């Protein structure tokens, strides 16, 4: 029986310069931040990052490791505008493919289904077709209507954070929304899932209802046990967003020095140290 347990560093060792990496979660919600931090500490570069973006995209813009970003939005939710993403866009330091939120979903679905595109109405008439000159329309063979041909967004790797996973790589979502984590996994050649707690195979049913097990091991390649692994984004019901640390992160976009200081304190540290900081910060909030 396969045992896919590994560490954040094992995941990073599987990544290569220039890869296209999809990141699950949504905005500042259930992002695989411990794996993202491991990437930030690595020499990886020229990455294309595909996400419903939050601090994952923000931080990879801040380090310059994201060469290209593909997104429907980038937001911290309670702080609507992601400050590091804004800096990167306004200084022109990152290539961007901006999409309607639904188009991003469709691009992942096309990749998952191994077709080159899927048609949709979304995007017609909007700036999306102007700012992405590679996007094409398609004429329906059943009546001639012109629709957007959303190209498949094939991923080399998907990174997800779940509430629970078993050691074989089935992943479980105990909050109200699993967002598009299952699509990211299906759209990727390889998928790594971090989670709050790893359980024995067959025991996820003790943790929550059957329908909360949203990603099958068919689609996953590695499982990282990472308690507080989504921190400072939220991972309900395990923990809420850490608004205090998120504000500190947002403030770090105001000057290069501020990011250097944030990075030294929260990124360039062993995960065990980060976890202590996170526990302390969350305890202060309650």
């Amino acid at each position, binding site marked *: 029986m396969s045992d896919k347990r590994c560490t954040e560093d094992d995941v990073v060792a599987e990544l290569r310069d220039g890869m296209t990496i999809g990141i699950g979660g949504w905005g500042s919600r259930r992002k695989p931040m411990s794996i993202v931090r491991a990437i930030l500490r690595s020499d990886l570069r020229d990455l294309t990052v595909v996400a419903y973006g939050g601090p994952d995209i923000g931080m990879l813009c801040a380090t310059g490791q994201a060469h290209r970003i593909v997104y*429907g939005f980038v937001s911290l939710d309670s702080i609507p505008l992601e400050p590091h993403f804004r800096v990167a866009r306004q200084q022109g330091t990152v290539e961007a493919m*901006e999409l309607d939120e639904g188009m991003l979903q469709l691009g992942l679905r096309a990749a998952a289904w191994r077709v080159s595109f899927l048609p949709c109405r979304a995007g017609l008439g909007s700036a999306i077709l102007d700012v992405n000159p590679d996007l094409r329309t398609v004429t329906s063979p059943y009546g001639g209507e*012109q629709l957007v041909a959303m190209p498949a967004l094939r991923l080399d790797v998907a990174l997800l954070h779940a509430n629970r996973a078993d050691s074989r790589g089935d992943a479980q979502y105990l909050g109200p929304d699993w967002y598009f984590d299952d699509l990211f996994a299906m759209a990727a050649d390889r998928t790594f899932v971090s989670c709050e707690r790893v359980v024995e195979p067959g025991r996820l049913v003790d943790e929550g209802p059957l329908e909360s097990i949203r990603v099958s091991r068919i689609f996953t390649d590695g499982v990282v046990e990472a308690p507080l692994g989504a921190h400072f984004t939220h991972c309900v019901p395990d923990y809420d967003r850490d608004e205090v640390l998120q504000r500190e992160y947002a403030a770090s976009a105001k000057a290069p020095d501020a990011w250097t200081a944030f990075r030294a304190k929260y990124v360039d540290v062993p995960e065990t140290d980060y976890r202590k900081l996170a526990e302390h910060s969350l305890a202060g909030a309650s």
Partner: protein
Amino acid sequence: MSTTLAEVCVVACAEAWRGDGEILASPIGVIPTLGARLAALTFEPDLVTTDGDASQLGAPIPVGAPADVEKVVEAWLPFGKMFDIVWSGRRHVMMGATQVDRFGNQNIACIGPWEKPKAQLLGVRGAPGNTVNDPTSYWVPQHSPRVFVEAVDCVSGVGYDRAAAAGPAATEHHEIRCVISNLGVFDFETPDHSMRVRSLHPGVTIDAAREATGFDLVVPDDVPETRAPTDDDQRILQEVLDPHRLRDAEVGG
């Protein structure tokens, strides 16, 4: 009972959903949220509201309510389902707008050239898909020539001229229902779908609306005053939906 501007705006937002029946109301912002919930509690009882997260509610909850507020949950609406609803045409969203032009093109994405914006904002979010699939309205708390512009910098929500140019698939389900601001209610019910004044809030003159708009507004001969909140509207707002008066923070009292 005395009426505040915020309450007039809430009622104007509520009116945007009149006649919509049993569809999903998706308001962004405090005043639109109060509007949708007020509509559901008064003249549109089958309108579907949510908790702003993944739950469809049986009865509207107050704005700013804590996550653990007591609520009647009817159904589950995670984001994946949300796109299904949007694309199936059973929704009417009221979004914000950093810029709007005379044909209802809306921008929330960025200011300046998209390639290297002067100010990066939200990105287009769901606006392109919303506008070609379902009725869409906009809420502008500060009506000014900086918002109501001749041409928006990045077309996020699609207006009438751009939809027409994109063809029948874009126009088939396209409708910009109205734009509500702190000055009045505006719609596109003109021969060329150029924005016209539908009503002005109490005390607002045509000249004030014209001056605050960066393009020529269509002004009918007879411009009515926006409907005033009824005593029942005010009671529901004060006792049920917004006891802490969050409505006043979004638009001056």
